[in-house]
């Protein structure tokens, strides 16, 4: 669907060695016992990811998964790729160092809403701003799972948790809006339980040259059960989910009864029957102006009603790692580094003592 080419014509996986034979899901499963709580949304994401990896057609040893800390960040242990479970919030920095020095790797980052948006918020926005070639999967369960249920930066205002017995007093982030504000060149949202959609978003992200940010709504049955029920329940989901596909008019609801139209500086939901079809917004993920995707990200009202799902933004922008490697390549002289070192040491004002 997308236009995965960066301004210099490069595709994300161009420099990653291709697999020889056909790969299977099984070879990407590690021998470690998976230890999330029964019913945790992380299982579904893991299964989707394991079956998605073979479709990339790159060598198994050239995929690396880096994570922070949280339930979600245990992810790398269950994948038979290279993997690093790092420290709380710092995965974007670690992944940036790795991706910048190793263009032959496909680098994925797993993080949670606390990991990415609380302790690691600074690293996240800067990774997106730099557009380093890493694919960031944010498992948003709107709670701190691993530390047993405190509210998180995506929990709704007034959330009652162990640390907020009379309700939280701080307003949440909208991770998609935040990523767009941080100049992200690829921003998407998907749902743990919708394997097909999740997989299609992963595929689009994999091909995107630069950072890709994917918010995955993930259910935590233990500490925040059914947080996304409205998006999953067959009775409510059609009204609640706004699917966006590049090039398609944005309509949703039973028989496309609802649609998205421009209003003022932003977008609004209208009844399809009541608007001129020409006024229905045709989704343009490649719009250079992020205001459009931002307006889309602001559609949901209370209770996740009208939540856009899909690739909201996918634009070409030079990636940090391409630029800096270009600078290094341009500086190379072809002389041996020993000789270069010798010239460096003996450069400047020197004098001889005999």
């Amino acid at each position: 669907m997308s236009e995965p080419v960066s301004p210099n014509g490069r595709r994300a996986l161009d420099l990653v060695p291709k697999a020889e034979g056909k790969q299977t899901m099984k070879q990407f499963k590690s021998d470690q016992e998976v230890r999330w709580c029964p019913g945790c949304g992380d299982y579904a994401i893991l299964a989707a990811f394991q079956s998605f990896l073979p479709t990339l057609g790159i060598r198994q040893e050239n995929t690396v998964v880096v994570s922070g800390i949280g339930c979600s960040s245990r992810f790398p242990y269950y994948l038979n790729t290279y993997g690093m479970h790092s420290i709380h919030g710092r995965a974007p920095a670690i992944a940036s160092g790795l991706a910048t020095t190793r263009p032959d790797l496909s680098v994925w980052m797993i993080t949670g809403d606390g990991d990415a948006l609380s302790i690691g918020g600074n690293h996240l926005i800067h990774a997106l701003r730099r557009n380093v070639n890493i694919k960031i999967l944010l498992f948003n369960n709107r709670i701190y799972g691993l530390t047993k249920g405190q509210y998180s930066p995506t929990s709704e205002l007034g959330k009652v948790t162990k640390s907020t017995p009379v309700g939280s007093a701080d307003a949440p982030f909208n991770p998609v809006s935040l990523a767009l504000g941080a100049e992200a060149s690829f921003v998407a949202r998907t749902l743990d339980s919708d394997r097909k959609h999740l997989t299609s978003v992963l595929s689009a992200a994999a091909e995107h040259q630069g950072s890709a940010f994917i918010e995955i709504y993930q259910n935590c049955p233990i500490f925040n059960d059914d947080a996304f029920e409205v998006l999953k329940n067959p009775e409510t989901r059609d009204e609640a989910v706004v699917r966006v596909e590049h090039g398609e008019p944005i309509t949703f609801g039973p028989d496309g009864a609802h649609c998205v139209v421009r209003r003022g500086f932003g977008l609004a939901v209208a009844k399809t029957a009541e608007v001129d079809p020409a006024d229905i917004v045709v989704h343009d993920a490649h719009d250079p102006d992020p205001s459009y995707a931002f307006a889309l990200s602001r559609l949901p009202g209370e209770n996740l009603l009208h939540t856009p799902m899909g690739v909201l933004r996918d634009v070409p922008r030079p990636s940090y790692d391409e630029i800096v490697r270009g600078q290094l390549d341009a500086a190379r002289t072809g002389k041996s580094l020993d000789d270069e070192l010798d010239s460096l040491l003996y450069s400047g004002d020197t004098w001889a003592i005999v």
Partner: protein
Amino acid sequence: MAKQVRQLDRVVIRFAGDSGDGMQLTGDRFTAESAQLGNDLSTLPNFPAEIRAPAGTLPGVSSFQLHFADYDILTPGDAPNVLVAMNPAALKANLADVPRAADIIVNTDEFTKRNLTKVGYDANPLEDGTLDSYAVHEVPLTSLTVKALESFDISKKDAERSKNMFALGLLSWMYNRSVEGTEAFLRKKFANRPELVEANVTALKAGWNYGETTEDFAVRYEVKPAKLPAGTYRNITGNTALAYGLIAASVRAGLPLFLGAYPITPASDVLHELSKHKKFGVLTFQAEDEIAAVGAALGASYGGALGVTSTSGPGVALKGETIGLAVMQELPLVICDIQRAGPSTGMPTKTEQADLNMALYGRHGESPAAVIAASSPSDCFYAAIEAARIAVTYRVPVLLLSDGYLANGSEPWRLPKVAELPEITVDFATAHNHENPDGSTAFWPYLRDPETLARPWAIPGTPGLEHRIGGIEKADGTGNISYDPANHDTMVRLRQAKVDAIARDIPDLVADDPSGEARVLVLGWGSTYGPIGAAVRRLRDNGHHVAQAHLRHLNPLPANTEAMLRGYDKVVVPEMNLGQLSQLLRGRFLIDVIGYNKVRGLPFTAGELESALEEIVKNV
């Protein structure tokens, strides 16, 4: 008038002026001239943290001290023989350091009522007898410069700005230094402003001629070239040497160098310098903060680069958790701490060695890392190579300690041949290392080399070695997550044993005791090497016996450290902190070493150490 020429063996000059007066540049140029002449030298820049404190005030004073001699010297000198004071503030801020009878050259133009009041002089010190016991040379530097540049089509401000070149010309005449190098330097510096080239060169020459013609300067001095070992030399600051050392390590190891850094005084020049050398494949990453800087460096190391981060104390404090991760993951990582006076913002441009405890212990859990320290500006080069060697060989984080004094100070460096630099061997894992009971093979990321105890460095992209690492405790061998109590105890001891084992691979501590009769050992680490050495020399010249030893490795300590310390009646440990190494030695060896501790943001002077040590040596 024929001028008298007097021979000296050494001179200490301090250039002092307002931050905007160009004193650092003047000092640098005089240093370069002295280096070209073949003197041994050592420098000490001293400047305020503010970029431009209000002009003419005490906090705005910037100075540059240079010690040059016809023999090898170890420090920038205790007290200046010559003070160049560009304004009343510079005089006031520096006078206490100047011994009686020394030369003071003052720029009388700046001694106006207003400027005097600004720094709290009620009366003009040039007139009220304050300077009676000094050899004062009153020179209207500003107006002489402006006059010399009358015919130039430049602003009065630009003309006045050239007064530092006038002063440099005068001093160059006094000490018989050629100004040719400076002329060439000016031509390059102002290449796109030719009018300024001519103005500055004219001011420089006017200063020289002023010395030649005025009667006030009756004597010229000569300091002959020093008899240093044969070789090619250049003058180098600690930060440049450190950056070169990292490049050399990367070349010797055949690993690309990745530097993650966030700007901080006095470490930023390491980032600046390394960002210039892209042809070596050096990738510099200016991160969003120090945590990201070390994180990115660790990520690069994981991918098979030489991951380095450079910072000062406040940055190391932020990096602690990631260094702990590197301890756990057993990956190479070099953390350069260019120490400055703390705690907190402290005195950012002033030196100190008070981060030793942080380097050794500043992480949670049992978290051993190697710690090494540089002892002089040029030694930063070798210390950086050694840090990289240990990190790569043992797969451990190495903290490399320098400080503000070494970072900005300079000395002549006899340049090494690249082929003579230490080898750094890298062996990435490429094959399975374990045989299962059923005869199949596997890769165990935490199986160790029996010699070094290092685990295999298996970088992503290596087929068949896919594995996961992390901060959670590892099972010995397999590297799988383990909460087993006995395993944790084993792993804690293994990580410690690995760092301890580095002691087998580092040189023994060597004591310098020419007479062989010393009963007192002076043990130092880091930048105190110069002042301790100079003090010890003076004591020996006065007939005392005293031994000196200096630690490059602070963790682990050289294997013979305890035995050496026990060989003396007394061990004195001077440190620019409240006794951090002393405490370590007492705790480790139950040897009651004597600390000499000052934390003034300035290096020790040889004189103060001499008196302190003399007391001890006389009383053993």
